[in-house]
């Protein structure tokens, strides 16, 4: 079971409270987690990564285990504590603005 924490605006959009829990088959990578997230919550498609290029939107960041994973390869394995569900995968709206 993978735990994902969404930013407030995306929780509202997906109509969820608190963490999202997902089953991910095979390797637990950023891409696999986001694929599973979007499969369960189609309204999130296009809000975290581009529909076509699948690239992370500029003002969205990914964290886990106190590390910024935003610029890691989407196919890199996520830390073991994320894969086991001990730690959540955090989708964060970047602090941007004045």
């Amino acid at each position, binding site marked *: 079971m993978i735990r994902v924490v969404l*930013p407030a*605006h*995306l929780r509202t*959009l997906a109509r969820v409270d608190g963490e999202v829990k997902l089953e991910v088959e095979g390797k637990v990578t950023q891409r696999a987690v986001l694929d599973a997230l979007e499969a369960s919550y189609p*309204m999130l*498609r*296009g*809000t*975290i990564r581009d*529909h*076509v290029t699948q690239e992370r*939107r500029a*003002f*969205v960041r990914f964290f886990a285990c106190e590390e910024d994973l935003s610029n890691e390869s989407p196919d890199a394995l996520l830390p073991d504590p994320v894969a086991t569900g001990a730690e959540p995968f955090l989708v964060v*709206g*970047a602090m*941007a603005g004045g």
Partner: protein
Amino acid sequence: MSTIRVLVGTRKGAFLMTSDGKRRRWKVSGPHFGGWEIYHLKGSPADPDRLYASQSSSWFGQVIQRSSDGGKTWETMGNKFTYDGVTGTHLWYDGTPHPWEFARVWHLEPSLADPDTVYAGVEDAALFRSSDGGQTWHELPGLRTHGSASSWQPGAGGMCLHTILLDRNHPERIFVAISAAGAFRSDDAGASWRPINRGLRSQQIPNPTAEVGHCVHRIAMHPSRPDVLFMQKHWDVMRSDDAGDTWREVSGNLPTDFGFPIDVHAHEPETVYVVPIKSDSEHYLPEGKLRVYRSRTGGNEWEPLTKGLPQRHCYVNVLRDAMAVDALDPCGVYFGTTGGQVYASADAGDSWAPIVRDLPSVVSVEVQTLP
């Protein structure tokens, strides 16, 4: 008695305001989609309970919302706006080629006949259509691939397709306007397009009478007379009597002919409303006075409408999609300001009262007249 529903998009959410036909007491709901920019929301003429909203943010991109119960509940629809075929380039601010990039939906125009068909005008400029109630979107690429498109250049607000007019008399006819490319017309349901900018003069561009390159801010028509168009250009208020084939200036005695919105009285096709703004470098009202100007002669002769509007220390703007009229008699006129006020007139502009005063900056105002 009829009900009036005003749909207001702001920088931080949507608000719905309802009143009876007297238009004195209002119920306000919202913010809907709080914290998100709502560039536009509009109801279907074929089913007034069907509403569409464009919700966006710099963080999370574009979202389309749909309501089937007049705004009580909403469901998230498709947000995949992919240009059809080769994307191509337009000119960037520095004059270099720049690839088309989708940024947001500026305007949603539901079909006159089918609640499930809706058009979307987007930045970078293109026209999309959904025929399944907003689940999927398909570009009408004939506009973006017009021979002039590689020379289009964005205005200060981006290269947005902000105006879509549908013609009840000619179902195959669509008018659009793009900043800063100009106005275009299709007579074959969006398959092919031609610029309709003859008569426009823009001193700010290298060739003031060029076929394209004009910063058209808004176009309005009266549904009973769709060949007559009124335009608020960057500077100049214009009129066409031949569906845009030619234009003539009707700024007349306006204190300034810069502005954004323009609209036409519901029952008097020669009665037109604008809100003059001081200049393109200041973007606020002249003399600190909020004045709507009305022409009852189809332009040239304008009168200020001030009763109930602040006449000192007012420096707001009224954006291009932030004015609308209802269909009651006398005609109601509505507009919203960048200062968060939404004003209503129940007597065709003779007098005004605020519905609300302290919303986030208002981007768009639409009105529904419900039986």
